[in-house]
C-alpha cells in the first residue's frame, strides 16, 4: 500500500484504479484467442480430412505444420508486416499458423486411435465413410482432439502477449507499457492475468471434454509435450 511506484514491486493502488482497462484487455485477449483457435480448428480439420482420405499427404502436412510451429512468433509477425500491416490480421495469421501443428497432430492421432474392430463393425452395419467418421470415430477421438485444443488455446494465450509489440496484445499491452516505462506493476499484472486466463480456459475446456464424453474416466497420467 505504498504510494511510491519507483520502489514497490507491485503498486496495488495502480491496479485497483483500473478495472475498466483490465476488463477491456481481458475481452481483447479472449477475442484474439478465440478467433485464432477457431480458425486454427477449421483449417486443421480440413487438413486432417485430407490427410485421412489421401494418406500420402500426411507427411507433407505434418512437415509444413512443424515448419510453421518452429518459426518464432516474433519473426513471423515481422515478416508478415509488409503484406498485412501492423495489426489484427498479421497477429491472427501468426497465431493460427502456430496452432496447426498441435491440432492436426491430435486430430490425426485421435482418429487413428479408434480400434479397427470398431470401424469395421460400423461399416458392417451400414455406415458410409463420412457418416461413420462423424457418428463413430469423432466421438471416440474427442478426448484426444479436445486435449489438442487445450494445448493450442493455452499456447495462443501466451503468444497473444507478444502481439503487443505490433500494436495488439490484450494483456501484453500492460507488459509493453511496463517495459517502456521501467515500471514493474503492469508487467506483473499482465503476466499474472495471462497465466490465470490460460489456466482458466484450460480448466473450462477440460470440463467441456468431460461433459461431452461422459464415458471416459480420465486417469491422471503424465503426458509429453
Amino acid at each position, binding site marked *: 500500500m505504498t504510494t511510491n511506484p519507483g520502489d514497490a514491486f507491485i503498486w496495488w493502488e495502480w491496479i485497483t484504479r483500473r478495472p475498466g482497462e483490465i476488463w477491456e484487455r481481458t475481452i481483447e485477449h479472449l477475442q484474439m484467442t478465440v478467433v485464432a483457435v477457431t480458425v486454427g480448428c477449421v483449417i486443421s480439420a480440413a487438413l486432417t480430412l485430407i490427410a485421412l482420405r489421401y494418406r500420402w499427404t500426411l507427411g507433407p502436412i505434418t512437415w509444413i505444420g512443424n*515448419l510453421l510451429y518452429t518459426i518464432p512468433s516474433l519473426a513471423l509477425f515481422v515478416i508478415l508486416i509488409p503484406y498485412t500491416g501492423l495489426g489484427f490480421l498479421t497477429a491472427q495469421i501468426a497465431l493460427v499458423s502456430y496452432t496447426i501443428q498441435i491440432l492436426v497432430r491430435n486430430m490425426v492421432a485421435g482418429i487413428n486411435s479408434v480400434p479397427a474392430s470398431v470401424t469395421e463393425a460400423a461399416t458392417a452395419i451400414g455406415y458410409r465413410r463420412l457418416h461413420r467418421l462423424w457418428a463413430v470415430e469423432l466421438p471416440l477421438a474427442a478426448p484426444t482432439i479436445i486435449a489438442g485444443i487445450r494445448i493450442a488455446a493455452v499456447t495462443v494465450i501466451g503468444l497473444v502477449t507478444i502481439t503487443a509489440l*505490433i500494436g495488439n496484445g490484450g494483456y501484453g499491452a500492460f507488459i509493453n507499457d511496463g517495459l517502456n516505462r521501467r515500471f514493474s506493476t503492469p508487467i506483473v499484472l499482465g503476466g499474472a492475468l495471462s497465466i490465470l486466463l490460460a489456466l482458466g480456459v484450460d480448466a473450462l475446456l477440460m470440463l467441456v471434454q468431460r461433459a461431452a464424453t461422459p464415458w471416459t474416466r480420465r486417469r491422471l497420467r503424465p503426458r509429453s509435450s
Partner: protein
Amino acid sequence: MNAIFNDLWGFISTADNWRGSNGIAARAQAHLWISFVATVIATAIAFPPALILAHLGKAPVLSVGIANIGRALPSFAVIALVLPISISLGFGLGFWPTCVALVALGIPPIFTNTYTGVANTPAALREAARGIGMTSPQVVMKVEVPHAMNVILTGFRISAVQIVATASLGALVGYQCLGSYVIEGLAQPTRARDRLLTGAVLIAAMAMIVDFLINRVEGHLTGWRSRLR
C-alpha cells in the same frame, strides 16, 4: 514482393552490416551463445530430478503441473518481469536477466518429457533388468534412459528451439542479439524495414537450423530402435 526481397538482400549483402559489435556476425554469435548457456543450465536443473522422481514413481501430479504452468507462462511477461527484478537486485541489464528468463522457459519441456519417458518404461523391462542383477543406477542408465531417449530428446529440442526463439526478446532488456534488429526496426517500421526483415529472417533461420540439427542427433541416437524391428 520484389521490393521486400531487395530490402532484405540489400541489408544482408552489405559487408559493413556484418562487422563491428552491432554487426550481424556479433549479434548472431551472442544469440547462439546465450541460447546455448540457457539450454545447458535448464537441462542441468530439469533433467536429474525428473530422472530420479520418475524412476521412483514419485510426484506424477508435479510433472503434469509443471507441464501446464510451462505452457501457460507467457515468455514475453517472463522476460519483461526479469528487468525490474534484475535492476532492483543490482544485476543490471543484458546477459544474465535474459538468461534467467530463458532458463525458466526451458525447464518445463525437458522436465516433463524426461519424466514421462522414464515413467512409461514397461514394468516388464524394469523387472527383467532387476532380475539379471542390475542395481538402481544401472536400471536408470542402461534401461530407462535408453528406452525414453526419443521422448527425452524431443523435450530437449522443444526447449532449445523455444529458447532460441525467445532470446530475441532479450533485445527488449538490453541484450544485443538478432532480436535487436527487430526491436530497432519496430521503433521506426517505415524507415528501417530492411533491419526489421533481416532480424526476422535470421531468427527464423536460426530456430529452424537448431531444430534440424537436434532432429539429426535424435535420429542418430535412437537409430537402434529401427534396427531392432
